[in-house]
């Protein structure tokens, strides 16, 4: 049922799984007025060396005294001098994360969940479809793929946001558009005077770009509404449900399949996900994804 086999993360497997490790914020990048990327490292240098994760996995981040929230690790396992995650200011914990400065200490436990199936993606043309902060989990995989370019074929990236000011990871977008092995398409729902790129919602632009489904896989992440409209377009382009991957988001507390709330039918997004193929989602008994 699941994309990759899940085993408890050996690393950080201490007596008490709920205890966070202390990590230090090393750099903060303000992506948009309400999204920022935080770079962090373990306070314990030994842990920093031992830590390993796969693209697509997530962690539980604590702001002590405020609470804990899950975010995917948005940096690539191939670039290990630090770790990154991106947060949109939406609630109690994310607001607190937006108040932090460089040098602040937060709690981290993880990595949790499954990851993108690299074996399955190997040797294929990859189509990344992202919207808004949904680029964060894709970004981990994109850099992973670029750093192992010989294992994969063509890369298409279609990324959109509401306005030019809402585009995240502009430095990555620049670097990918300069990369000859990548076909980078950026779009916004509404442009402004200085906007020279495409205008239109992501599913529409995807239809225009029309990447071939032959020996390809599409990896989709964005707001639920975008995901819902993207799958039909991909189907039209000839992608089978197995060829479409996405990562889901649910309210989570424990991150390890115990607290109950992130289920879709008998699937727990934190434990069995967050990466699913559209084929799997379709077979869920529940329409609650």
């Amino acid at each position: 049922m699941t994309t990759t086999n899940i085993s408890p993360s050996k690393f950080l497997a201490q007596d008490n799984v709920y205890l966070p490790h202390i990590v230090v914020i090393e750099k903060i990048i303000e992506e948009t007025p309400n999204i920022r990327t935080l770079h962090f490292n373990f306070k314990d240098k030994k842990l920093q060396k031992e830590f390993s994760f796969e693209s697509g996995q997530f962690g539980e981040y604590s702001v002590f005294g405020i609470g804990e929230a899950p975010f995917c690790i948005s940096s690539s396992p191939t670039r290990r001098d630090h770790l990154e995650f991106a947060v949109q200011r939406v609630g109690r914990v994310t607001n607190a994360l937006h108040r932090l400065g460089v040098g602040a200490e937060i709690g981290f436990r993880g990595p949790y969940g499954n990851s993108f199936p690299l074996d399955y993606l190997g040797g294929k043309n990859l189509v990344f479809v992202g919207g808004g902060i949904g680029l964060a989990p894709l970004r981990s995989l994109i850099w992973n793929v670029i750093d192992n370019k010989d294992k994969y074929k063509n890369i298409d990236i279609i990324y959109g946001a509401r306005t030019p000011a809402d585009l995240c990871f502009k430095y990555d977008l620049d670097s990918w558009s300069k990369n000859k092995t990548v076909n980078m398409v950026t779009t916004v729902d509404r442009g402004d005077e200085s906007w020279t790129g495409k205008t239109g919602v992501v599913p529409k632009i995807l239809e225009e770009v029309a990447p071939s489904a032959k020996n390809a896989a599409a990896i989709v992440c964005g707001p639920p509404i975008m995901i819902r409209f993207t799958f039909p377009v991909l189907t039209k382009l000839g992608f089978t449900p197995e060829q479409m991957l996405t990562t889901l988001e649910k309210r989570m507390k424990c991150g390890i399949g115990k607290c109950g709330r992130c289920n879709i039918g008998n699937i727990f997004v934190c434990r069995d996900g967050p990466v699913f193929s559209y084929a799997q989602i379709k077979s869920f008994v529940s329409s609650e994804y």
Partner: protein
Amino acid sequence: MANKKISKKDIAKLLNQWSREFAVFVPSKESGIATMARWDGKDVTLDWYRNTVIPKANFLPAMEEMFRFQKDKESYNIELPPDGGKQLIFGIRPCDARALAIIDANFKNLYQDPYYLSRRDSAVLIGVGCINPSESCFCTSLGISPTESKDVDLMLTDIGDQFLIEEVTDKGKKLIAKASGLGEATKEDETRAKEMKETSYNKVTRKINTEGIVERLIACFDDQDFWEKIAAKCISCGICTLLCPTCYCFDINDELTKQQGTRFRSLDSCAFPVYTKMPMENPRAEKWKRVRQKVCHKYGFFPMSFNAIACTGCGRCIRLCPVNWDITQVLNNLPVKTEVGK
């Protein structure tokens, strides 16, 4: 090997022997409702019906401290709460004991939950058979007898002035070996116990049909009309979940005072809209979806994952519900033919 027996008036003496090693909990009506309370050395009430607050609370408290953190100059020190010690639960019902065995699966799955499991491992359960099952009880439909249990360490059966004691586990055997003041059960005692068990079993009249329940639930999962209809009178309170012996969902929250803080976990309920609420959307904002989740989790999703129905037929949810929302009526009236279409 012959079973032991004990006179009802000697229970306090027996508990006294055990209280040296264990924190002893017994059913009590001290606070106006029947609960499992710390034994005060007095005689034990044995005529209680069901406990409103379930023995689950001894293992998964309604609220517990996970750890404390203190800001020490620039860094945080994390400190675990002290170990609570060994518990002895006297008077647990077979349904509630089974419930613990059921939720063990969740806390053992993939990652070990240290708080719950350490309490479970060190605790001793002493079951007392239920000779007056209530009108709301339906344990027999779920393969549970009101007077027999494999999920306790010792099982007591009421045989008039005395209890017959059956040793169920090795832990139980050790307890008995150390105890004094017990008698040997005679053949007559055994016969009497058998009669009591049969009578009690037949007193459970409420039934549900669990045959093919998972498939039947999945088949009507998308029948919105059905779920809306049965959810109409539900008021979305947390009684049936928070007081369910097999409900384990929890919430985690922090609290900060000056430089010290605490992370708590507390029971949560799928009946509350905030349970699944995310900033942008809520997959179960509507009441019928939450009711559906509750029913399907207990009788569908949990069995799919752990091969056991997450219900023991204790009937608390029926009896305590302010609007008399009855799970047995729902399960016995699942629509048979449904067109599954999205």
